[in-house]
């Protein structure tokens, strides 16, 4: 069985970097779980605890926490070559 890459994006609907990050992953053909922390209070808490960050976006990819749209780090973890 091939291992499915687990991507979780903690975001709010209106933040520019969140949208750019999601557009980028879509374009590269990755699926992700889109977690709206504006609606989901528990997820907001989880995000702040895991990242030490009170700003979106935060992503969790293969267990690693990425703050903001850190393209270099995301490319590395997902082995995206541009």
């Amino acid at each position, binding site marked *: 069985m091939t291992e499915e890459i687990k991507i979780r994006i903690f975001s709010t609907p*209106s933040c*520019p970097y969140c949208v*750019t990050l999601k557009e980028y992953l879509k374009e590269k053909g990755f699926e992700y779980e889109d977690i709206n922390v504006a609606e989901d209070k528990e997820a*907001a808490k989880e995000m702040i605890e895991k990242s030490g960050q*009170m*700003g*979106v976006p935060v992503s969790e990819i293969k267990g690693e926490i990425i*703050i903001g749209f850190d393209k270099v780090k995301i490319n590395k973890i997902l082995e995206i070559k541009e």
Partner: protein
Amino acid sequence: MYDLIIIGGGPAAISAGIYAARKKLKTLLIAKNWGGQVRLSPLVENYPGFESILGMDLANKFISHLKKNNLEIKEGIEIKEIELEENNKVVRVRGEKENFKTKAIIIATGRVPNKLGISNEEKFIGKGISYCATCDAPLFRDKKIIVIGSGNAGAEIAIELTNYASEVYILARSPGLKANEYLQNKIKKSSKIKIIANALVKEFKGDKFIEGFIYQDKISSKMKEMDIQGIFIAIGSSANSSLVKNMVELNKQNEIKIDSSNRTSQPNIFAAGDVTNVSHKQIIIAAGEGAKAALNAYDYIKKLK
């Protein structure tokens, strides 16, 4: 080599991209992030065709419209440097790793929020300090928040925050709010918002997250400390023109000087939208300016052949 590179992701850049693609220019649009100032405005009620639309919804419509056109798009790339080569005939654009060559360029990089300039401000960005209420407001549920800045932006943010925060304070340097009457009336009606006037922020306090701040009362000159769990800073914005500051003429506000054809002082560098000295920073104006810049860049490129 590209005919045209457009730098930016707001209405000016997006509109320029649509027009350039329709003129069949070999175009690359590079957006660090999408939406520009549009996305930061909670509600847009002055863009024809949309009586009332969320800023983010309008921005999403712009982006999907752009992507229906035939041009190359790179998103999430920050341009570090722009250089002129081959007797200033070619523009080279450098990112962290990549670089591109083009005959002409449109700078539509918009504006960046001003910072207070307090020593530990950077340390608390994302740790309780935010410049983007539409992004981060929901994370401050049931918290005591201060908004620094008493203009329209500060007032709008304070009103938005009442949906989440337990208490909202507006800190004004001036004796009162500078926001328009409509917003001031809304604030008066809200039991959650209080105003601290004649105040100068001096220092932020906290360990991992922001916990409080010190301000000076301008009347008594006394220093006062206040516990707080979140700070939104809305003290205006500046033109994001640093990429070309040594290549084209800027005005005193660091806005790129353009003529009525969006030309800068350098013939192959065009500029559009909020980064320029065009009067009134509005979505409709930025979009129009972007279209104009693309059409004038097209004329310039055609003459090269």
